[in-house]
Every structure is written in structure tokens, then in C-alpha cells.
């Protein structure tokens, strides 16, 4: 992008202008280069190899740490994963409760002047006792 320069064309500004032109040409050439098949192949292979090496290095370090009887990264990740699974189960349960609550049309916070009757309980007692879901029309 060219910039409008208010300053007079001093030698320094001319130098900058020449540099900008060179940079624009370099940018175009670089974009052409990264769009080539050779670069794409190089990038794909390098990325795959680099990550494979990183994986090996991680495994070696983890084994070293474990030998010292200290929890390694993989152990911590395993624990965090268990927590995540538990959270998943809780969330699914919560969503199920929300869904049932919506179906029963039970307000989360009944108004202060609401009658003492409990609609959820009334609906439940009216339902057949075979575990079928009560579907109250909205």
C-alpha cells in the first residue's frame, strides 16, 4: 500500500520510496513462491517431520521425568482428561434436566405470589408410573 507523504522528496524519502518499491516486488515474488507446488510439498513434509520429532522428544522427556517418580506431563494430562470427562457427564445431565424442566414448564424462579401448588409434582403424580416421560404442551 502506498503512503501519501506530506514531506518534500528529500534524499532520505527517496531512499525510503526505493525501498518500498523493492519490498513490494519481494512481496509479490514471495507470494508466488509460497503458492508453488515445491514450497507446498516442502512445508507439508517439514511440518510432519518436525511434529514427529517433537513427539519423540516429548516422549523421551516424559519418560525421564517419570523415572524420578514425579508426575510427568502425560500423567497430568490424563488427570485433566478424567476431569473433563466428568464435566461432560455433568453437563449432559444438566442439559437433560433443563430439557425436562422446559417440557414440564416449571419456572426456575416462581413469582412471589405464585400459589403454593407445585406444578412439577402435580404433573409427576398424574403421570403413569411406568417411567414414561411426561410431556406437557407448552
Amino acid at each position, binding site marked *: 500500500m502506498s*503512503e501519501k507523504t506530506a514531506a518534500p522528496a528529500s534524499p532520505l524519502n527517496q531512499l525510503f520510496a526505493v*525501498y518500498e518499491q523493492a519490498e513490494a516486488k519481494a*512481496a509479490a515474488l514471495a507470494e508466488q513462491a509460497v503458492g508453488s507446488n515445491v514450497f507446498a510439498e516442502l512445508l*507439508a513434509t517439514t511440518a*510432519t517431520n518436525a*511434529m514427529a520429532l517433537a513427539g519423540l522428544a516429548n516422549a523421551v522427556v516424559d519418560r525421564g521425568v517419570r523415572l524420578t517418580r514425579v508426575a510427568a506431563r502425560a500423567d497430568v*494430562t490424563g488427570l485433566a482428561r478424567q476431569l473433563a470427562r466428568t*464435566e461432560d457427564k455433568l453437563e449432559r445431565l444438566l*442439559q437433560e434436566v433443563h430439557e425436562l424442566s422446559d417440557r414440564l414448564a416449571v419456572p426456575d424462579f416462581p413469582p412471589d405470589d405464585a400459589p403454593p401448588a407445585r406444578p412439577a409434582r402435580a404433573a409427576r403424580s398424574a403421570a403413569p408410573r411406568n417411567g414414561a416421560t411426561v410431556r406437557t404442551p407448552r
Partner: protein
Amino acid sequence: MSTLTGLVGGLVQDAVSVAKGTVRLPLDVARTADILLTTDRAVIGATPRDVVWTHRKTTLYRYRSTDRRHAVPILLVFALINRPEIFDLRPGSSFVEFLLAEGFDVFLVDWGVPGEEDADMGVAEYVCDELHWAVRETVRASGSPHVSVVGWCIGAALSAMYTALHPDGAVRNLVLLTMPLDTSGSLYRQWVGRPSFDADRVATAHEGVPGPMVDTANKLMKPVTNYLTTKRRLFGQVRQGTANKVAYQAMAKWVADNPRFPQAAFRDWIRLMYKENRLVDGTLTLRGRQVDLGAIRRQAVLVVTAAGDHIAPRAGTLPVLSMVTTDDLTHFDRPGGHIGLMAGSKAKGLIWPDIAGWLAERSRPARTPRPARPARTRTARPDAPTPDRRTP
């Protein structure tokens, strides 16, 4: 004699100019360095908000507002790479702030910063669980049975998948900003779509792809521009006294904040979108259910493309116009890049008001009759900038 005098005068003037420039040069360099080195102090995502719901690393936020005039809340969904603060970049240049001022109830789903323990989070988990629950919690918190979903980049693709899987769900309006859809011919596909790119191996080594690696790949698409030109341009602006330190630092901070791309999500995304191009083919399945964008028939859909988008090229987004089957379809095409379109200095005047206006027309309470559906617009326009194919 007069020629000689003029020559000498010119030389003296040049010498003075060079001397002035040389004296100023260290100061300008120091000022530029100051901007670059203090970028991490920039404040982004500053609009006050409350946490509505969390699950694992995902958080649903609701922005505080005392002026909610529209019945249908907006749920903002961003990509899995980079952080969603781009929606709320800085005071005075924040899409969230703009929407709040327009009277919308604004929610944001933040995917958070996944760790190694989130390696099992795939595209199906994000679409079928996280986004589904976020929509449900938005409905619960807002009290509205409907929601407008605004997705950007990968977030747009996830939003489109979700809406296609729940065509009779809560989504009333769907806004797709620079959405990758047909990846054939894209530079990304050339890089990661080839057989030699082993997405499994790349994603497995670190139980996900480290953010800086994704950032490097993005920057390599325009290496000189991203690594050199932005900094040289900043130096030029400092020299001219036109540099906007706050704006530069906010954007630079956001660009540098790259969370990990979860292992399963990366593997799914590369395979489904780049290696097999399934979304546009209509052969993508999530948890055994086919994701057919043609199922989007009840929602009003707004597609926004950027003429200079090199990450999700405009040509790759346009097929969505012929895939969705809704009668209320609008397409805005604007100059700008993938991010600059919505977060650039001109976005506030160029695209935000149009999006807000489009949403406002379609955010009336459900009981009142919806405005008559305008004629369907499908044809892609030629090069921007040209008038929008938008509904009256």
C-alpha cells in the same frame, strides 16, 4: 551565476533535509520500537460482560446493556484459531459495543484456550455439543425463543453446520462472515490437502496443534507483508506522525494470541474441509447425521464476503448462496481482507451498520408477523465494490 546559486541552494536544502531526517531517525526508531515492545499492554475485549455458562474451556458471555430494544438476541461465534476478542477489539472500535448501542442483546461463545486434555474435542463436539448448548443457554438467559447467530471464519462454518443440523431449532437469523466453504483452489488446500501432509501426525505430537504453528502458517501465506510490511508501515506512520498506537497495538496483540487447535478438531477440519471438501459436496456427516446446507430453509441468511480475503477466498464462500434454500437470503460484498473487513478502521462505517440493520429488520418479537420476505437473491456479483444484493 543564477544557475550556480540555485544549485548551491538546492544542495544546502537537501543537506538540511538529510540532517533533519537523520537527527529524527533515532527518535522515530525508538518510538516504533516502543509501540512494538509494549503491545502486550494493550487492552482488548474490554466491554463489561457476565459469564452465563461454561463447559470445559468454552464460556458463554452476555454483554451488559441497559438498552435492549430488539427481541432476538445475537450469539457471536468465532473461529477455533485466534481469540474472539476481535469482536470487541477496543473501545470505539468494537463490533460488540456497536451492537449494544444499536439495542441488541449480545452473547458471545468463547472456545477458550484448549489444553492437551481437550484433544478429543472434534468438529462434532463443537457443533453438536458446545454450540448446541450455547444456543440453548442463550435462549434460556435471554428469554427469547429465537436467536441470531453471527459466525466468522471457521465459526461461520460451524454455525452453518449447526443450523443445517437443527433447521427447526432456535436459530432465526444466520450471519456468515467470510466463511470457508469450497476450499478447492485455495492456498490452504494446496498446503494441507496433499497426501504428504499427515494431519494425524501433525496433530498427535502435541495432542493438538500449537497456536504459534497455526499463526506461522497463516503468516506464510503473505510472508513479506506479514513479517515486514506491517512493521515498516508502522515506522512510516511514526515518521509522518500519523501512527495510531492504540489501534496498532490492539490488533497486534490479538494477532499474536493463538490458542492451541485441539487435536481432533484439527484432524477433522483438515480432512473434512481441505482433503475431502465435504461441506460443499453435501457429504459431511457429524455423529452419523448428514450436514446438508440445503436444510437451511426457515432462517434468514446473510452472507458477507471480503473481496481481498486470501484466507477464505470469496469464490470459495459464494457456493453457499446456491446451497441454502431459504427465501430470505442476502449477500454483502465489501472490499477488505479476511479480518480487516470486520475489524479494520473502515468497518464501522462500511459493514457494521448494514449488518445491524439487516438483523434489526429480522429481530422483532415472534408473535408479530415477520416482514414480508423479499425476493431471493442468489447471483454472485462481480468484483467489489458494487451495490449490495440486499433485500429492501
